[in-house]
């Protein structure tokens, strides 16, 4: 090994030591920025109007159509679900603050299964834990609500995961309800 090379290595070593702290900060900064950019990029891909694909989804009847409109603005995400069928329409709208660990939202009603005698109780309020996962490609909602039936009130948990496809054109909404033995899969296409 030549002396010049050794000197070079020594200067490189000194440079690295002196700059490590800065480098560390820079590296952390890049990673953070990258994560933020990734997250915000995926979140913005959620934005828009999504139309239900009946061929790929669990049966929706008595509804025949469904759509989701998502609008993520900074820390807030607005989700509007619309159910339609035979000239009858219902909607559920919530605005979620993604910085809060849990929040209470008031919605119009519970429309997911109009065949069964179960109605949103608890003054139409739902407690929601909302979080971004998978580098912003999944929006997960853990919902606690009260359903009223013939015999009174029941606490029901709903896990609703909204998963964005890599190409940003398909939204898969997986729902597990604590009262239901079968999961529900709803697939939506971006409009």
């Amino acid at each position, binding site marked *: 090994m030549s002396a010049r090379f050794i000197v070079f290595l020594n200067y490189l070593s000194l440079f690295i030591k002196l700059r490590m702290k800065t480098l560390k900060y820079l590296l952390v900064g890049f990673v953070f920025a990258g994560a933020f950019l990734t997250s915000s990029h995926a979140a913005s891909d959620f934005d828009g109007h999504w139309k239900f694909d009946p061929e790929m989804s*669990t*049966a929706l*009847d*008595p*509804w025949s159509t469904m759509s989701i409109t998502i609008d993520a603005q900074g820390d807030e995400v607005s989700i509007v679900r619309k*159910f339609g*069928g*035979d*000239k*009858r*329409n*219902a909607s559920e709208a919530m605005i979620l603050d993604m910085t809060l660990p849990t929040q209470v939202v008031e919605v119009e*009603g519970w429309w997911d*299964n*109009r*065949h*069964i*005698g*179960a*109605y949103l109780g608890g003054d139409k309020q739902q407690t929601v834990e909302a979080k971004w996962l998978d580098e912003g490609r999944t929006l997960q909602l853990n919902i606690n609500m009260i*359903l*009223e*039936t*013939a*015999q*009174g009130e*029941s606490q*029901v948990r709903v896990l609703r995961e909204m998963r964005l496809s890599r190409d940003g054109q398909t939204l898969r909404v997986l729902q597990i*309800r604590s*009262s*239901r*033995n*079968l999961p529900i899969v709803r697939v939506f296409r971006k409009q």
Partner: protein
Amino acid sequence: MNKRSTFLGLITAALTLAVALAAIPRSDAAQPQAYVMQMTDNWLIDGDLPEQAMLMSLQGLANRNGPTLYLEYGPKWPWQITKPLRGFYEDTHSYQFTTLETAEAALDALASAAKGYVVWDKEVRTSLIVAFTVSGLEDALVVSEDLIPLAEAAGLKMLVDLRGEFRGMVDHEIYQIAMDRYWERCSRDIVIWMGGHHGRRMEPGMADWGIYRKAFFTDLSHNPKHTEELALTNQIYREQNPQSYVMGWHSYKKDTEGQQVAMTSSYGLRMEGLNTLPNISFNSQIGFSEGFEFKNNHSVEPDEVVIPEEKVYIALVQTDGIGIGAWTKPGRGKLPYSWGMALSWVDFSPGVLEYFYAGAKPNDYFIGYSFPSYIYPKPVPDSAYPILQSETRRLMKALDLRVMDTMDYSEGNRHVGNTDLTKNVVDHIYNGYPDVIGFTNGYGSARTYDNRDGRAMISYDYYLGSRRPKDEAIADLEELMALNTKRPYFLLIHVRETSSVDTVAEILGGLEESADVVPLDLFLKMAGQAKTYKTRYKQDDDPVVRNPL
């Protein structure tokens, strides 16, 4: 002329008359006779509608002389009982039917029932509906231009020509003209709403009955957006006799079932559907066979007390109109099943009711409705309740019915709004029907519950739609059982009429928690003794949606 010639002349005339009489089916003969014709499933203006409408008008006119012409409908017709009912008339009433193969043959046999014909305009669909009104008032055969030669070949002359009269007009203008000309002469006991399909299609199954009864025909709107049509609709309802009939159905294009029936109910009028209900001019003249008595398949005595076990009890009900659904489909009799009976058919289709009762299997149970016709209770004025309920009690007794169903779509439907009953309505029901052992409510799921002196009122907890996949239906029922944890749990299911009993049996067979499927009277008796449900009436803050189009 000598005596011999006169005698021979009289003999010849008598023989001629005897031959002529023998050729005409007579309902009062020892073996009653009638004609039968087959309808196709093509109900388009450019298809078979013109000829079939003509035959229906002929039916209405001919049947004024007795039950003379019966029509059998195709496999796609909503009422699937026309063929089996004919068989019932043959077997039980000894009817002998002669088949008429063509329209020409029908006119040859029966044109004498008409005094002429009325021509409608194929370019103006509404003119056919007006022509039905004219037919009843003028004893006129209803024909399109193409059928004029046929009518004239049968010796008929034009009485009214509607061609070209209504071109460029909208419906409220056409019906205003029709009302100006004909309304005063029309029945105030029946009006026919010839709605249903719109456009180039019409299914005027009830045309014969309206013609037979000289009714006004229309398909005016009940939609608040259609102010001119609505004004005429209101005028008709105002001027009909109290508790008279509105028969047929709303127009699928203009308004909704909820809008129409809410409005007829607010006038205390009796809605009877559908526009497709056929052969009433024939069926109304067939009484009960000798010795026949209505006997229902009761599972409990009226004052019996039945204590339930701690399990899930299921009762199955179909109320859409007994002739249009699962009655004729495979599996009937396999499960305890309740069927809503059209109470008013005691008066205008008694033979049809006998057909259902005679064909009931041990697991078939008949129930009535809270009014003598299709009426929503919430819009009915309090003052109309006594007379309507009195009539209902008469009909319930005649048909040996002890359970009663209610449906109210005036503030919603099975998707949105509410289908629940106010306390005032529930009070009326309990007070007005002291002999009824229990009540059901809803169409889709509803949430009105009560229990007075062991007489339960239970709303449907589940609506089994015909398109629901079986595994989802099973999951639905299991979800209800998971949400309603107290036992006994009374799970009342309303089954869409197009679902067969076999399908329902498969679904119930897939449940994880076993449930007893029981007859409805037993179900309600047990519910009357174990109040695991909460009393509830329609609340002020329940959502209200008045079924807009």
